[in-house]
């Protein structure tokens, strides 16, 4: 009798673990690492981890903002364009206004880079606030509002840069692993982890987060409960814009140049990371840790397929399958099926 009971208990425990989106994501990640290591032993190295983290840095910043927007029941298609224009304005500020070129490197570039980072974040914030204005004041649905700012930002990025990358001062050691072969993290990636953690805590441990979930679940009820929905959405889109601006600066650090084509289709990578991470496009559901793991899975797949020598065209197919599986896993879970 007691053996049976123990077995049922174990089964319940297993079901709980498997039912948790984060454990599923970790299992998927583990399975991918094992599969790619079998295909190419060099995949299981600190160098590969460094490559994956470097790629992860820019998209996770976009995806962090996107998580807030999606939980609030909206969508932000402009984050890729915001990344591009912020990288370009940042480069323009350093190259044209401060007059520094690619010969300013190493520690000499740090002062300029601080100004460049501030320029990028300010640019992103401006785009985010424009989105908020279109959505809350002109009552345009988020999909259309951010579709128009996506076009405008990509266009302005080309206009400002004449369509060519603007090179400027840089310190490439900030974006390289701190100790190659030992520590895969770069200073830039560590900074990203700090920023994402702060935004994650803000979402899960503050009234701001509570209100975001409330608006995403039912904006009428949220309004009835006394939440200033317009003001709150302005904060959400403003923050998403600022994070996309920071991502633009991160990409500047990677390239040593602000490139107008660096944002193309990046919004879809960000949305993919959020969706794989378990957030619902209907709003009201999602966790920051899921987004972080979702983005990590995306780039593990990307690096793994390159390392394994799989034809590049397959990457899109694999990512598509992952997205479909992630969403199916959500909707097929028993507690969701009851609804």
């Amino acid at each position, binding site marked *: 009798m007691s053996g049976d009971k123990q077995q049922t208990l174990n089964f319940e425990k297993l079901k709980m673990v498997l039912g948790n989106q984060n454990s599923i994501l970790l299992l998927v990640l583990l399975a991918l690492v094992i599969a790619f290591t079998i295909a*190419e032993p*060099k995949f299981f*190295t600190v*160098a*590969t981890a460094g*490559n994956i983290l*470097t*790629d992860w840095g*820019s998209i996770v910043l976009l995806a962090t903002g996107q998580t807030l927007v999606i939980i609030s029941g909206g969508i932000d298609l402009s984050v890729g364009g915001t990344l591009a224009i912020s990288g370009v304005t940042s480069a323009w500020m350093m190259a044209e206004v401060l007059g520094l*070129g*690619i*010969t300013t490197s190493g520690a000499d570039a740090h002062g300029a880079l601080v100004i460049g980072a501030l320029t990028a974040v300010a640019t992103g914030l401006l785009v985010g606030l424009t989105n908020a204005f279109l959505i809350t004041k002109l009552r345009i649905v988020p999909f259309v509002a951010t579709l128009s700012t996506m076009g405008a930002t*990509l*266009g302005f990025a*080309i206009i400002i840069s*004449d*369509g*060519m*990358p*603007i*090179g400027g001062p840089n310190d*490439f050691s900030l*974006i*390289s692993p701190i100790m190659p072969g030992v520590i895969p993290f770069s200073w830039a990636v560590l900074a990203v982890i700090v920023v994402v953690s702060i935004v994650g805590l803000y979402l899960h441990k503050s009234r701001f987060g509570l209100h975001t979930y409330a608006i995403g679940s039912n904006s009428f009820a949220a309004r009835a409960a006394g939440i200033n929905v317009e003001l709150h959405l302005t904060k959400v889109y403003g923050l998403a814009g600022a994070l996309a601006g920071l991502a633009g600066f991160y*990409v500047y650090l*990677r*390239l*040593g*140049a602000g*490139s*107008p*084509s*660096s944002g*193309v*289709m*990046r919004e879809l990578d960000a949305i993919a990371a959020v969706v794989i991470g378990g957030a619902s496009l209907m709003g009201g559901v999602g966790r920051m840790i899921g987004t972080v793991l979702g983005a990590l899975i995306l780039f593990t797949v*990307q*690096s793994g397929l*390159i*390392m394994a*020598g799989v034809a*590049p*065209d397959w990457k899109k197919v694999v990512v598509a399958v992952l997205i479909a599986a992630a969403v199916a896993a959500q909707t097929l879970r028993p507690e969701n099926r009851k609804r």
Partner: protein
Amino acid sequence: MKLNRVGKAVAALGAVALAAGLAGCAAEAEDETLSIAFVMGAESDPFFQAMKLGAEQEAEAQGVELIWQGDPSNYSPETQIPIVDNVLAQDPDALVLIPTDPTALQATVTKAVEAGIVVANVDTRVGDLSDVLIFITGDNEDGGAKAADAIAGAIGYTDGESYQVVIGLTSPTATTNVARQEGFESTIASKYPGIQIVDVAYSESNPEKASTNVNNWLTKYPDLDGIFAIDGTNASGAAAALESNGLVGQVALVGYDAYPDNVAKIEAGIFTALIAQDPAAEARLAIRTLVEYLRNGTEPSESEVVIPNVTLDSNTSSDDLEKFTYVAN
């Protein structure tokens, strides 16, 4: 929606008025100023930015009016055909066309010639050139061959040794990519059999993805000898990857397209060599040929002209570097 419809109506009215006005002018002031329409592929491409500058300079030197048009960012016949139709409605004396598709634009060329407009093709061509006065292009296959020579030179190629090289591409369908890759691969196969092309990957026009590809290659092939970055985007990404991995000078990097930022990186030793096209020269020659034909009836001595790509490296004089750098206004 409502606003959109009103806007369209206003635009249509405006276009009609403009066309009528232009027709009136043309009737009154015959052969005062020649007008040459120039319809290119995609404004956002630095290649066309450089071409625009060449066209503007030559139009000014020849004293002709230039009508520069094209889609802001889409390189496609769907967006190009309506633009050409609108331009032809302005009744220019000549049309320089960069057809975005050899078949889809053929009818447009026929229509222009029937309306008495002289047509030239630059960079790309329509399938049947019999209606086209002159076709001027860069030779991408030759550019790929030059890249192979540059890589072989940089790695100190000797027969009997073996070397590993990768190619960073943009997409499997970009025609310039395909021509450059063919020129590169056939030259490697015939002249440098010891060089093995171990992998290719796509950047999807995104320099960050180009950089990712190179990072992964450097991990997978620790003894990598060289990288051929097939366009400006791949060149930017590959250069950044070498810099952040501290491998500048240890892995040969041959890029394509003389963006100002890339040219600066030749001087800094990051690029072994950069292959450049000369879009401004293509545009200048097209306009000069059309003006001579319209003013004096001089037919060009050749109906197809190939402007070769050039190799820029640390031995190139600073004057030449400046001359071939893609500049916009």
